[in-house]
């Protein structure tokens, strides 16, 4: 005998156009192509050092009055006199540090890089090492070709060696330069990793260093976690995770921000990678940081949690247990629409889980803000909210579905049928069709049809029958034909009759489930 929980089980078997839960979840990974401008609130890939930041004696060399032409610089670096080399390098560094239009291209074309790399190795001259590292940092902050020039100049190995320099400023500048190189993409990142930079970086974290230095290290670590195709190797990740988990306890918001970004990159992948992060026990702290008042902490911590709930049901369960659903409602109502969008995205993936997760989602009061977003959110937010509803609908139990309809989700959903986005339109049509089928089983279809008509749904669905996209047109047609054609007649005529036709007619009719005493919702 099958168990008594059978109906839920059956509902779960309903196909969302042939997609199962895991497919619904991995949307972000699937289409990575963007037409849009890169997002403004993402973390910087590369940074130029434009201000002197240190009071280390090594940098307090006479610097005033040195302003050389490019040719003089070229000549200077090519002498064997360390002082001249220093002056020329410093002049070059200054040019590269000017706020507007630094002549990166000129310096690269002038062929200075090989010499600058040579200078990195001159440990008797820390000041020169420092200036060279700085100059290289700024060159590496440029275009991919410019970063490539630095790498091809052989800078990585000497920079890694500088990580053990006794002079903190030199060391710090090397960290920065390596960060820029690693930030260019997977290829250079992996060269930095295979040059054994990670153990040195980690060693620096454990020592007592100024906060600005720690920030730099954290940022460089985040770049070592960044980028896919391929991801950083698992050994490297395993090396970095304990330190990242430690840094996550820090109080400084920049350190926290970059640590969270690092974790967000590590979780932006397959379930195994997510598991690596989740197992370090960072979830409670991440959830805590989602309430941060600092946008630069909130954004990446939310992104990380969002990534984690694309994982397995178990991983999602861990995030829920850590309390993510308690924080989400306030994020759904955040004044910034980009936060609303990320929160709704995370929610959509929780809704893609088993009905127990959906139950938690309801219990945490997620539906009212969700409906509010569907109504008044910006389109990019509405889009995520629609996905949430779609996942909820296909994965929820009948009772949860009733709850959803009662929360007033249909009216904003129907209004969105006029949106200029074919995918969203078809999803909404599917949701409506699914809810109608569920209502049919509860003998509530007539009321639901009336509700949909009241909120202007029939007009909109009818109009979609003429949509240019054949799939949209067909789905709309099917909804009208199956649910709204002469639908009112059966209700209006039949009461004068005995309820049904001959007994065998009922053979093929849908099961009339236990009728709930549900009231029709007024929007």
């Amino acid at each position, binding site marked *: *005998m*099958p168990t*008594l929980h*059978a*109906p839920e089980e*059956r509902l779960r*078997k309903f*196909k969302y156009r042939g997609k199962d839960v895991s497919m619904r979840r991995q949307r972000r990974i699937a*289409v990575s*192509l963007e*037409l*849009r*401008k890169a997002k403004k609130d993402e973390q910087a890939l590369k940074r130029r050092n434009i201000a002197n930041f240190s009071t280390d004696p090594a940098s307090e060399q006479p610097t005033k009055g040195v302003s050389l032409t490019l040719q003089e610089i070229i000549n200077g670096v090519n002498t064997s006199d360390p002082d001249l080399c220093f002056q020329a390098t410093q002049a070059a560094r200054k040019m590269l540090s000017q706020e507007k239009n630094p002549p990166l291209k000129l310096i690269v074309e002038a062929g200075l890089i090989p010499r600058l790399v040579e200078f990195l190795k001159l440990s008797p001259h820390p000041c020169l090492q420092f200036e060279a590292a700085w100059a290289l940092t700024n060159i590496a902050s440029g275009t991919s070709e410019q970063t490539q020039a630095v790498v091809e100049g052989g800078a990585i190995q000497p920079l890694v060696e500088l990580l053990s320099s006794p002079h903190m400023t030199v060391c710090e500048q090397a960290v920065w330069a390596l960060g820029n190189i690693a930030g260019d993409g997977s290829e250079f990142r992996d060269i930095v990793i295979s040059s054994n930079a990670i153990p040195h970086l980690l060693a620096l974290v454990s020592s007592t260093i100024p906060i600005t230095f720690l920030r730099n290290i954290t940022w460089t670590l985040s770049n070592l976690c960044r980028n896919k195709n391929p991801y950083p190797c698992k050994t490297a990740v395993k090396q970095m995770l304990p330190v990242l988990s430690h840094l996550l306890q820090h109080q400084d918001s920049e350190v926290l921000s970059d640590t969270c970004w690092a974790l967000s990159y590590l979780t932006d992948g397959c379930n195994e990678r997510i598991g690596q992060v989740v197992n370090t026990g960072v979830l409670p702290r991440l959830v805590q940081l989602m309430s941060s008042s600092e946008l630069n902490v909130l954004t990446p911590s939310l992104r990380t949690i969002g990534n984690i709930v694309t994982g397995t049901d178990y991983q999602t369960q861990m995030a829920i247990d850590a309390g993510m659903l308690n924080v989400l409602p306030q994020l759904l109502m955040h004044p910034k*629409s980009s936060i609303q969008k990320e929160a709704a995205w995370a929610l959509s993936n929780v809704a893609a889980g088993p009905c127990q997760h959906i139950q938690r989602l309801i219990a945490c009061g997620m539906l009212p803000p969700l409906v509010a977003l569907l109504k*008044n959110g*910006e*389109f990019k937010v509405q889009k995520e909210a629609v996905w949430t509803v779609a996942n909820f609908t296909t994965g929820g139990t009948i009772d949860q579905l009733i709850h959803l309809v009662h929360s007033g989700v249909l009216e904003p959903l129907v209004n969105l049928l006029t*949106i*200029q*986005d*074919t*995918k969203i339109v*078809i999803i909404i049509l599917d949701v409506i069709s699914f809810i109608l089928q569920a209502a049919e*089983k509860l003998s509530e279809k007539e009321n639901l049809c*009336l509700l949909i*008509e*009241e*909120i*202007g749904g029939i*007009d909109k669905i009818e*109009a979609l029958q003429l949509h*240019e*996209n054949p*799939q949209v047109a067909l789905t709309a047609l099917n909804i009208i*034909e*199956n649910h709204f054609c002469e639908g009112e007649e*059966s*209700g*209006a*005529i*039949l*009461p*004068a*009759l*005995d309820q*049904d*036709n*001959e*007994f*065998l*007619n*009922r*053979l*093929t*009719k*849908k*099961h009339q*489930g236990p009728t709930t005493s549900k009231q029709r919702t*007024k*929007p």
Partner: protein
Amino acid sequence: MIYCGSMAMELSDANLQTLTEYLKKTLDPDPAIRRPAEKFLESVEGNQNYPLLLLTLLEKSQDNVIKVCASVTFKNYIKRNWRIVEDEPNKICEADRVAIKANIVHLMLSSPEQIQKQLSDAISIIGREDFPQKWPDLLTEMVNRFQSGDFHVINGVLRTAHSLFKRYRHEFKSNELWTEIKLVLDAFALPLTNLFKATIELCSTHANDASALRILFSSLILISKLFYSLNFQDLPEFFEDNMETWMNNFHTLLTLDNKLLQTDDEEEAGLLELLKSQICDNAALYAQKYDEEFQLYLPRFVTAIWNLLVTTGQEVKYDLLVSNAIQFLASVCERPHYKNLFEDQNTLTSICEKVIVPNMEFRAADEEAFEDNSEEYIRRDLEGSDIDTRRRAACDLVRGLCKFFEGPVTGIFSGYVNSMLQEYAKNPSVNWKHKDAAIYLVTSLASKAQTQKHGITQANELVNLTEFFVNHILPDLKSANVNEFPVLKADGIKYIMIFRNQVPKEHLLVSIPLLINHLQAESIVVHTYAAHALERLFTMRGPNNATLFTAAEIAPFVEILLTNLFKALTLPGSSENEYIMKAIMRSFSLLQEAIIPYIPTLISQLTQKLLAVSKNPSKPHFNHYMFEAICLSIRITCKANPAAVVNFEEALFLVFTEILQNDVQEFIPYVFQVMSLLLETHKNDIPSSYMALFPHLLQPVLWERTGNIPALVRLLQAFLERGSNTIASAAADKIPGLLGVFQKLIASKANDHQGFYLLNSIIEHMPPESVDQYRKQIFILLFQRLQNSKTTKFIKSFLVFINLYCIKYGALALQEIFDGIQPKMFGMVLEKIIIPEIQKVSGNVEKKICAVGITKLLTECPPMMDTEYTKLWTPLLQSLIGLFELPEDDTIPDEEHFIDIEDTPGYQTAFSQLAFAGKKEHDPVGQMVNNPKIHLAQSLHKLSTACPGRVPSMVSTSLNAEALQYLQGYLQAASVTLL
């Protein structure tokens, strides 16, 4: 490998000459000349160079007709052959493909417009297949032409680009699509932007040159359309960076007017209107999807669009522009963060006064439709197919504004309504349109939600609907002359109709005789609305789900109601008016016995109508309601006096015979249903008149039409129920024919359930000896179908059938017939079908049949107790308890998800089931078993007394705990124990 259909045709003058001759012949009106020429061209189109010959002709032929003909032939050739279908030969050889792609853009651009259009179409067909991968030069080639400065060429490029890119507006996001868009953006966005700027500059340099302006504006329209396509999927980086350029220019264009571009035509939209309309769409797209980035520009667009509305006239040519523009405002004013743009009292007032009120006016075009095209008018006005009209847009704007400003907007409009009503009062015959607008305004202001079934379901509480009804609607309807101011009468009736749930019942009651009176109005709209309003009022529900109006309340008007309804069918233009026929049906249904005195007249009028429309059935709804009305007459009359059925047969059979003889396909299913109803009304044996028909019902040709099947099965069931003995004695030779029908139905996935209906009736009603010789064959047929194509629906029907058989013939008979087909078959059926699938059976009666049947198998079938089948005894009991206690299993296997919609029952395009011809639910085990659970307990008890000790041990050893608990409950309820 390159595949070529056959040999190459030389690009020679001789071939060109031949081709010209054949092309000429394809234009010949005489099919004897035309057809062979077409055939010939088809036969050579697989040859290499054929398309190039066509291109040469369309470029170089001396004869213009041949040029155009060649271009059309070329386009059709491309349409048929360009796509390479997997597993099919490539129909155009590679060299031709390359040559076509290399030349077509140039050719298109240098051709006159007529040919350009054909080639442009051909390019987009090719582009759909080859662009971008297999046609990498296309974009650059097009973009280079922008430099030409020749706007004839530029417009050709733009048109082609539009036909290539417009699919971005409706295709689903995919990596492939977005890669293409990215490529297009990289190559096209900047040149398009530069062209846009240059074109606008040229517009000001040529501000006084009408013909130049017309060309430039055509370009601007196309550019704006391209903008829409390129920005549809997402906001591209390029357009975000260049938003200022585009939006500032769009804004300027919206506010631009140039006398030279104004057209005299009142109907057809001019260039200026088309451009502005597209710009409204572009702005709406940005406002809807890219709000964050567009926010800065939006207020200016709101102002510009609103000014545009204020200055645009009432002519039809502006309709699309105006409705687009209003829809833009409607979508913006609902957004919380733009509320401030509208909240100023002066702004609101001026929107109401200058945008909404003028667009609600009843225009000359509306008046024309009202009088000359009433059907269309009714459809738009009543059924809401007015999506693109100005009135509808204005109405949407009112609703949008009411979201935040209900109070102020209601206040402003109240003033307008009053002044319009005053205008009307001053001189009704001149100013009646003011009242029309006032009623429309009140309606759109008051209605917040509406359904066909209930009318308005949520109303604006600030509008006093009853007061308006009493003061302004009733007086019009009370006026003695039903033909005066027909538009206002229609407005008034519609008001009653849609606000029927807001206006108190006593007022509605007052309006009923007025509505009945208006059934006589000459205007089609007015008497149609009156009929529709009555029909809607009669369906309203009061407390306890009874109709709001009782038959007693309507009784005083019965005679005049029925008279006027049937008289209305004689008014010009309304002889097959579905609203009137529906009102007739509804009146019968409400009035019930009260119509009996009038039945003789009514039925004779209905049969006359039936006879008349059966000559040429054209209004399906009208016909359907007519048959419903006939059924109602029969039911109502025969309920009180069953003997009266004979009178109906007398009145109807003549017409029915004619319908059957003339094979009026639309009506035959209806006729069978009415006949079923009549036959079932007979209490005694089947009349001979019906028996004469019986052999004809088995004719295969009738069963060919799927629309007939449900009605025919229903009728045959009625025959079996009433006349099984007569059939067995007097028509035994027809039994094979009957089974032949069953065999045919069972073979079809769509109709197998109908086959089972028939089979079940045969088993239930026919004397066993009359079907004895066929029984085995029936089972074999069912098994064949199970083996060949098993569906859930079939299994459900099969389960009900075998259990019914078990009840009727006994459990042992069932076991024997299975094992008689093949040894041990019975065990297989139990194990593979009954036990695993029984949970899928749906319907209370069906479940009961199965429960009783399985109980019999468990308790009245000796082989179940002492053969190898015994091991299935407990699993069978467990599945029976599951049938009682578990939710129904309504899962459908994956492979059945996509069975065509036509294959599923309940959806029969050609079959129209008559609700009033339905019959009572029939329970074949009704008297025998009342409570199947108790029945199971009692039967088990009886079994256990026959073989003490065995039943408890079988039950306790392998029934699961949950099921056992349920079983003990049944035993307790039945007060029996197992021995």
